[in-house]
């Protein structure tokens, strides 16, 4: 069963990234996701980027489904099911939030629930930085140095971890970045939560297409925590194609 929702508002957030707002009565936790069906086109998972009554998803254009969505207008309809999966668990103490690229979409509603935290927003370049307006006090890192720290998010994170004491790290972004953050957290013995992505078919935990080391991203995740993350040897290394074939990342 799908619910049909109408797009209330569309906002261009960064290069190739738009937020779509719609009303949905379901209660959603930061880190959970919807499956969005565009009839005749595709169905795909999208994390919530706004969790109030007026929900939001923030979508990066990367293929035929997301391209179609980028062409939609206010008043157009989305078919949704969910929310699915386990979201972030808010931990005691000071948090370091590390978001790369569209990964910030997933982290944004979490950050709005935290009290004591610092945020790193990272992207390849200034144009692709997401939610720098929404989180004005965030640290910025760009691969090309067009804004903020010149270098990878993980490098900036290491600097900050050296200078301050954090109790927990939350991260979402390109998988190599997340894998590196997990490695850093393990080394420094800090708790970490990461929101993972895998190819999803069912979204409800039965098809096995999204599994990583025997855990389903759609139901057991998408947010996983340490120490489980420390043991996931597929993280950053291997994933499965829609056929189920394991391939290197």
């Amino acid at each position, binding site marked *: 069963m799908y619910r049909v929702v109408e797009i209330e508002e569309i906002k261009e957030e960064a290069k190739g990234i738009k937020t779509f707002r719609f009303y949905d009565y379901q209660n959603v936790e930061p880190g959970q996701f919807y499956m969005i069906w565009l*009839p005749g086109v595709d169905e795909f998972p999208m994390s919530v980027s706004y969790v109030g009554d007026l929900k939001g998803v923030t979508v990066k254009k990367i293929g035929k489904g997301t391209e179609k969505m980028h062409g939609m207008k206010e008043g157009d309809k989305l078919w949704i099911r969910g929310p699915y999966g386990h979201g972030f668990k808010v931990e005691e103490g000071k948090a370091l939030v590390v978001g790369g690229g569209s990964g910030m979409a997933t982290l944004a509603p979490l950050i709005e629930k935290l009290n004591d935290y610092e945020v790193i927003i990272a992207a390849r370049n200034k144009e692709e930085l997401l939610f720098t307006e929404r989180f004005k006090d965030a640290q910025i890192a760009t691969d090309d140095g067009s804004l903020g720290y010149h270098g990878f998010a993980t490098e900036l994170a290491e600097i900050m971890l050296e200078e301050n004491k954090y109790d927990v790290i939350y991260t979402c972004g390109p998988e190599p970045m997340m894998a590196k953050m997990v490695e850093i957290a393990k080394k420094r013995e800090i708790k970490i939560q990461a929101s993972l992505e895998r190819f999803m078919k069912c979204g409800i935990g039965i098809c*096995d297409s999204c599994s990583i080391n025997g855990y389903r991203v759609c139901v057991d995740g998408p947010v996983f925590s340490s120490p489980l993350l420390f043991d996931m040897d597929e993280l950053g290394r291997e994933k499965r194609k829609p056929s189920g074939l394991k391939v290197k990342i």
Partner: protein
Amino acid sequence: MLQVKVGTLNLRNPLILASGILDESGETMLRIAKNGAGGIVTKSIGMKEREGYENPVIYEFPEHMGLLNAIGLANPGIENYGDEIRIAKKGGVPIIGSIFGSNEDEFSYLAKKMEEYGADAIELNLSCPHAKGYGMEIGIDTELVERIVKNVKREVKIPVWAKLTPNTSNIVDIAKSAENADALVVINTVKGLAIDIDARMPVLSNIYGGYSGRCIKPIGVRAVYDIRREMDIPIVGVGGVENYRDVIEYMMAGANAVEIGTAIRYKGINVFGEIAENMERWMKENEFKDVEELVGIAQRR
């Protein structure tokens, strides 16, 4: 008290993971084995890598009624499947390799490969309702079924199970054509279709899908009862098993074991352990010592 035999295959309990549900990757299967399943059937594996159909491939009916799926036999191809079997086998429960082909030679080849990889038995998917040239299209042709079963039996030493389709007017004829198998697995999904009236189109990209879950149980139980009435062959009941009462119902109808798929959506992967516990409790209350006493006791002639 829950140990059963399906032909020569021993299972610690009659609760087997059904093909296509959480059995693509070796590590997931291993996790399910650790969670109490008595055996595990792999996803159906074919000759070549297949992506399956485009999303949506699953549709969920309201109120836990069941699912419609047209995954489309997505699979990495038999040549890439050895590692998954080897990892799954660490769970210590029998791994039954499900295979699909378009003719008897393909089935034989696939079965031999599965045996080589270490599978404890083969399940022939003669019943997938939504893939052109495979599954049910083969499974309603009694002569072809007979040939496939015979050929595969000749090629491998491990037990061969034949999984049948309910989308037929006489499942007993098909069962008889597969009588050389070591066990019959009934049923696969029921061919179905759902339309989203707001989208004004079928929900699945493949239009048609296979209907599974709670709602198909009366159809599955009927098929098991029908076959048990006329044949002594081991039967594995599948379709809509969600709780211990469902297992007992299938066994009373004549099943020696059951497979469980869709229930995982609603009960999680602990469903195997939970059912096993409840079955033991029920058996004690009802003074059964051995679960095999239940097999076929509801048959009336």
